[in-house]
């Protein structure tokens, strides 16, 4: 039942004629209270969907900002169970904003796939992205997630060719995450022109909304991608603000939320501008 939150969200935004702004933060980073202030402030700042990172000791697909965020979270003692507690607490004040957990397979495997699916659904999780679990290995995880009503969200990448795409999209729901560059998070920036056809291809093959992420750092860039994609994911840029705030000994939450507000505004305005230009 929980994946309805994602479907409802995208249906509403389609009605509004705009893309979703997806904000990524790491669970418990930099400390549980600050992290919760950020998380609970994101919807009001304009985040339509929240991706909540589950920290892992060996995040192979992450660039330095999210690697460091994971280390900070682990130092705070964040576990799978504590991440789910955070979602539970968030849901007490927010029943509508979809939450997608993003992480690596081993902590989920360690928890047990079935137990994890049941607990995550009960906590109010709507979707799950597992970076190191390609479709070839996903069935044992997809079964309990489907049963619990949690979307297993798939990643399509520039190396996913037309032949492979159907396999990638099998058993997926909610939305598809298009990784716009071959690389780790938060480093390379994709060429907006190159993203367009790829997003079209994935959208046509899946019939699902397509979110684009990796390398989107500024409101201008978010706006450009929002004209093409159904959702724009920003992670490293937000997480890096936490690192900067810590270094400057300043409170992190206001910085992150201000940046989220600017990004959300840019996403909201992007198609409006286009509409007015067209008119």
């Amino acid at each position, binding site marked *: 039942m929980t994946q309805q939150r994602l479907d409802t969200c995208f249906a509403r935004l389609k009605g509004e004629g705009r893309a979703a702004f997806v904000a990524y933060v790491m669970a418990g980073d930099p400390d549980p209270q600050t992290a919760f202030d950020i998380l609970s402030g994101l919807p009001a700042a304009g985040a339509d969907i929240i991706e909540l990172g589950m920290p892992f000791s060996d995040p192979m697909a992450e660039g330095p900002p999210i690697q460091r965020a994971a280390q900070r979270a682990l130092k705070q003692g964040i576990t799978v169970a504590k991440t789910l507690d955070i979602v539970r607490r968030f849901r007490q004040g927010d029943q509508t904003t979809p939450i997608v957990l993003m992480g690596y397979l081993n902590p989920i495997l360690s928890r047990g796939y079935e137990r994890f699916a049941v607990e995550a659904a009960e906590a109010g999780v709507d979707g799950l992205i597992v*970076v190191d679990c390609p479709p070839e290995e996903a069935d044992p995880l997809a079964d309990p997630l489907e049963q619990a009503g949690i979307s297993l969200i798939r990643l*399509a990448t520039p190396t996913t060719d037309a032949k492979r795409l159907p396999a990638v999209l099998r058993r997926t729901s909610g939305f598809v995450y298009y990784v716009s560059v071959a690389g780790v998070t938060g480093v390379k920036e994709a060429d907006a022109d190159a993203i367009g056809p790829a997003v079209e291809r994935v959208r046509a093959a899946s019939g699902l909304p397509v979110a684009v992420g990796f390398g989107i750092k500024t409101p201008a860039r978010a706006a450009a991608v929002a004209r093409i994609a159904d959702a724009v994911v920003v992670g490293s840029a937000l997480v890096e603000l936490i690192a900067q705030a810590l270094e400057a000994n300043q409170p992190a939450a206001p910085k992150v939320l201000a940046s989220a507000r600017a990004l959300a505004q840019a996403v909201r305005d992007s198609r409006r501008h286009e509409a007015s230009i067209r008119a």
Partner: protein
Amino acid sequence: MTAQARPPVPNDYAAYPDAAGRFGEFGGRYVAETLMPLVLELEQAYAAAKADPAFQAELNGYLTHYVGRPSPLYFAERLTEHFGGAKIYLKREELNHTGAHKINNCMGQILLAKRMGKTRIIAETGAGQHGVASATVCARFGLPCVVYMGAVDVERQKPNVFRMNLLGTEVRPVTSGAATLKDAMNEALRDWVTNVEDTYYMIGTAAGPHPYPAMVRDFQSVIGVETRAQVLEAEGRLPDAVIACVGGGSNAIGMFHPFLNDEGVRLIGVEASGHGLDKQHAASITGGRPGVLHGNKTYLLQDDDGQILDAHSISAGLDYPGIGPEHSWLHDVGRAEYRTCTDDEALAAFQLTAEVEGIIPALESAHAIARVGELAREIGKGGVIALCLSGRGDKDVGTVAAALGRKISEV
């Protein structure tokens, strides 16, 4: 917890992995989607090369004339006398070019990379042996090479860093995480995912996503194939046991694999128990549980939440919190036995071998030597054991000197 009751014993141990790259429940291809097409391409390219007599002939030519194969099987008379049991033979992989078994695999992979049209090589290294072997073949075949090495290992293996530089390789110190081998592997994977067009990732052990565990095993199986023939020639029969150290486990699986269906031959892997199994160690099978890391499902050192723990071994080459998936499977089906050896026991075996055989073994190989004595007595006189002496210990003299409280000037 995914560990189950002991899986069924197969009819043909050598028939694994299956089409999905699995050894029972272990192995697989747990990589990011960006890498999946690359891993599948590699699988096809390797299958074609493996079946191509021209590829095998070229590889064998280099193994003979460049690496120096076959390596001798040497009857260690004085070690045998010292322990007073079964005859101990040493498979002298330390006599290969670059001083360890690592070159067997690198030679195979560089020929494959060239065949695939790749123009840039990346590798990870712990002690630096695989890094040096990678740098060596890249120099020989004229390809640029980047080796990722934990900053901690760069510090404790300076001579190997310089060796790699001499061979024209760029060594990139990795400061993320614990700054050791597992972090170097993370960083190599990050490089690969960023440079998908031209780059070949030369993994140094029989681990990682399929086809690496099977491919590296195949390239290292020359160890066991030769040993099997050499023991037959020397003794007129197969050995009672073969024994090798296990970190990622490439020398061990290379030694074991040609004996898998010889069920009378015991296969014994020795893991590094570091400061002790109740303290910091690197014994993934003995002290870990199954999980997923670096592209494969295997035994791992991890906490209750599935976070990977830092390993410890005095030997940098065994200092890894995982093990190749075929070992995990051989353990679970009961075909191979895994024992452990502490830092102190390895140090004692290192010195003993130097003193009675005139051979300075790598600290990695010393772990196997430390367990061979009781095995020799267990099997008894009249028995035959073959031990894989996977590398020479020149690289370790600094570490050993420090452990013994002696000072030597740096190389």
